[in-house]
């Protein structure tokens, strides 16, 4: 029976407990990854500009660095809070995208998304009667299992799982998107 238990425990831990633990860890960390993305979006949506630092009031009030920087900083902050959540940072990861969705019935033409750090540009003020302006943050990241297994490569089970998460929220100051 002892032998049987040893075998059972072996099966239990090797094939069930650790894999489930790794998968569960990955799931939890995937949630943290999404959480970082979501929090980045929520904060970015409240920004006053898209990629310009302003102070309210000028010149030394509360700094508002813009949606692009705010989203990336917030995402990085949350990443630092949770080990095992990571992504390669570059200009478009996390990606902060301006989406102008046409309001049905407005008759406005569809327009292309703008991806940060680009802004809409001076003079390109979205008409809020025709478009719903939203910020979408997308992160191409990875979450690592609790116990890496070097012998074989199954994402989420034995090696980091690559994920793309995104979140979207309405931007509160649409004219600020031109800056």
């Amino acid at each position, binding site marked *: 029976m002892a032998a049987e238990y040893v075998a059972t425990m072996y099966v239990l831990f090797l094939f069930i407990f650790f894999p489930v633990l790794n998968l569960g860890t990955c799931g939890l960390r995937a949630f943290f990854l999404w959480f970082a993305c979501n929090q980045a979006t929520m904060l970015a949506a409240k920004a006053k500009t898209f990629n*310009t630092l*302003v102070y309210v009031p000028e010149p030394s*009030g509360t700094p508002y660095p813009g949606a692009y920087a705010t989203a990336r900083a917030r995402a990085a902050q949350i990443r630092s809070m949770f080990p095992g959540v990571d992504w390669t940072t570059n200009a478009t990861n996390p990606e902060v995208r301006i989406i102008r969705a046409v309001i049905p019935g407005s008759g406005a033409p569809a327009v292309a998304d703008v991806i940060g750090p680009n802004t809409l540009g001076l*003079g390109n003020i979205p008409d809020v*009667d*025709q478009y719903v302006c939203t910020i979408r943050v997308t992160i191409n990241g990875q979450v690592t299992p609790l116990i890496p297994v070097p012998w074989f490569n199954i994402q989420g089970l034995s090696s980091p799982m690559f994920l793309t998460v995104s979140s979207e929220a309405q931007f509160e100051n649409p004219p600020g998107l031109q800056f």
Partner: protein
Amino acid sequence: MNERRIRNQKGAAVTGLVIALFMFIMLAGFFAFDSSRLQMAQRELTATCDAASLAGTAMLTSLDIANDDATASKLGTAQAQACAYARNMFQNGNMLGRSLGSANVVSPYSAVSTIGNPGDCNVMISLADPQQQFIGVAPVFPDRLNGRAIMCYAGYTYNPVFLGVIGVGKVLLQANSGGGLPQVDAVLVFDYSGSMDDATNVTFIRRTWDSTVAASGGASAGRTDYSVFTSANAVQDGSSGAPQSTTNGVVHYIEVPPPGVSHRMSDYIQFDYVAQPNGFPLNVLPPQSLPTADHTNSMAANKYVFDYNLRANSLLWHPTIPKVGSPLARFQKDYGTPPGNCTLEYPFGYGKFYSESAAAPTFGTMTIAAGATGNTAYNPNAPFAGSLIATEHPRTIATSFRYPAYVNTGADQHIFTDLVVNIANPGSWPYAQPLNGPTNFVGFSNFQFPSQEPDPALAGQTFSFENIGVLTEAARGNLDIDGTENFFTNALLDRGSVYSTTSGTIASKQPTGMTAAHRAANYQKAYQRLAMLYSQPIATAIDGAYGGFFQKINTLTDCRFGFVGFSNADQSVANPSGPNYTSQGSGHNLAADQPNSFFTSAQYNGRGIGSMYRSTKFTAPEYTTAIAGGAGSGFRQPRRALVKSESQNASYSGVVGGLQSSTVNAYCAPWSALAGVANANGLENGTPMADTATAEALKTARSMFHNGASYDIATLSNNRPAAKHAIVFFTDGVPNASDAGPTLTEAQGCKGEGIAVFTIGLDVTNNPVLQGSQVSFLGNLPSGLAGASGNGGKFFPCASASTVRDSFSAVARRLTQGQR
């Protein structure tokens, strides 16, 4: 046995495995359940904080903080109410299906972090200073002045449902949120059209010479004006009647009654608002445009007629007459020219007091006759040494000449010379609008302006307005003491004067009691200040714009303001169609039905106002010739450009002017104090004029957002990118057809520039025609200004003056709501 036991134990490991798996999965499920629930609770707590802080901040923008006292007690009350509102909003929230109604309101902040029993919630609502990284602000003066945001901090004790079994205890969830400090850059476009004072209670006065009354006081030696009167009812040629006695004749003020009970100016002349929804250009303060009383759309059976022949000095606006430094300068003052309050104008005047080098009516060089220089030229008490000019002394009375008659019937009853506001004691500072004067003027004495009165010439000073005689002379300026000029004597008021408050009942005339002792510095200014406060609906509208918009925005946001007063298009600049960021004067009264504006000195408050007397209705030179030496060319409309670089306080003070005594400086004051100062561009520096020239005004307002280094939304350096850009357009009318199209074009231009146009349409006449026109012109459809501008612009109709502040508050609320 042993084998059996062994056999029986076969599969036990599988059972254990299954049990272990079951436990493992169950624990994982419990963990997942509690984690999800924890996350949900966190989100609900955050959302509740968001809702509470936003609601509190929104409430703060909704409460009245206008005309606050020195310790900002109104603001303190508003902040307390806003915090209470935020707390209520929080306690109306739910957490995990349970009400937060029993949430503990705690203080200080550390108490929020206290772990209590499962389900306990602690909340703290506080003021914060958005300018200082949202640090807390104590609700006491002066700290409260910086408390522009409502913060909500909350702590919730979460008790895991399952994980408690494995030793995971209570968890404290925390959240906080605060209403942000919005940036607002707004330009107010404010209507100073002639209709903005139509609802003022006024009295029409016929000021005339009464030769039946014995003079008194200073009426001593002097010659008889033998041009003159032989009866109380008519101006007669001296040759046809007996010369007057030197001891007879005083000024008589006769109330010209309205057709009904109401003394509202529009009721006086029974104006037809259906035919002309925009009202009429007759004004209670300069420019009064008194000849417009007999407006085409006046429905009075006998129209009220201003007789310019009975009003003094029209001729004396001639450009050859020096404005200062000459005895003739006194002509520019609005003395009543006795006798008979008649003009010197040929052929109705009495040319005994001067001679002309050229034949009349060419109006050549005018000089005082010899021997008269020591006295007022037209003073009948002065010795006469000039030569009579025959043509100026017609022996027959022109049929078109209106007499200063006392006749109680027919059209003559409606002849008037003065229009005065039924002022009253406005109470203590701050004056509470709406102030409506009494239906019938009630004299009052010893009114002392509050010490907070922004006009330093009036603050603390005492004035009396005992009857319509005093009121009229105060309005004319004849009770002023101004240097060496003696208006009182020149107007022959030293002979005594009488008044009648019921038209035609000469017997009821009573002495006015005016003596030289009545004179005081700034008497006219005092009248004008009180008249301004009692001018409706403009006084209430100004108060509404000030308290409902400017004060609120200034208190609760980081803001810059621009201001565009409008009425008539500015004709004095190179570009009459605008934009004009400053206004030296509007060339008004050019239209045939808007003749000149009587009763304002060319040197009104020290400022030449140029061609304000222009008119095409009357062809005499005094109406069509610009006043020489006038620095301006008409009444100014206050305008102040939006400037990014100036401080918020400077911007605010510049547009609110003297509405707030603490903001008075060289550039802002009530118009009564600084109307002549070029930089006086506050709300109170405008006065109703005539037209509703909206296109130039809106173009100017829009251009203030494209004004180079001052402000330019097309550049980052000259812009405030985080600011909400808005134009608030207030009017009590609609433009004429030619103006409507260009105005709409400007609003459409705002759409692509992110500028919202909020429109406020006031109708104090309950006129469905006007209301319909305003909905169309100002409304939310693409054909209306608000709708055309997009960007969240909205139209707010106002059915009464008292709701103007509510509408301005609604606009302010829309501009100030935000979240950090």
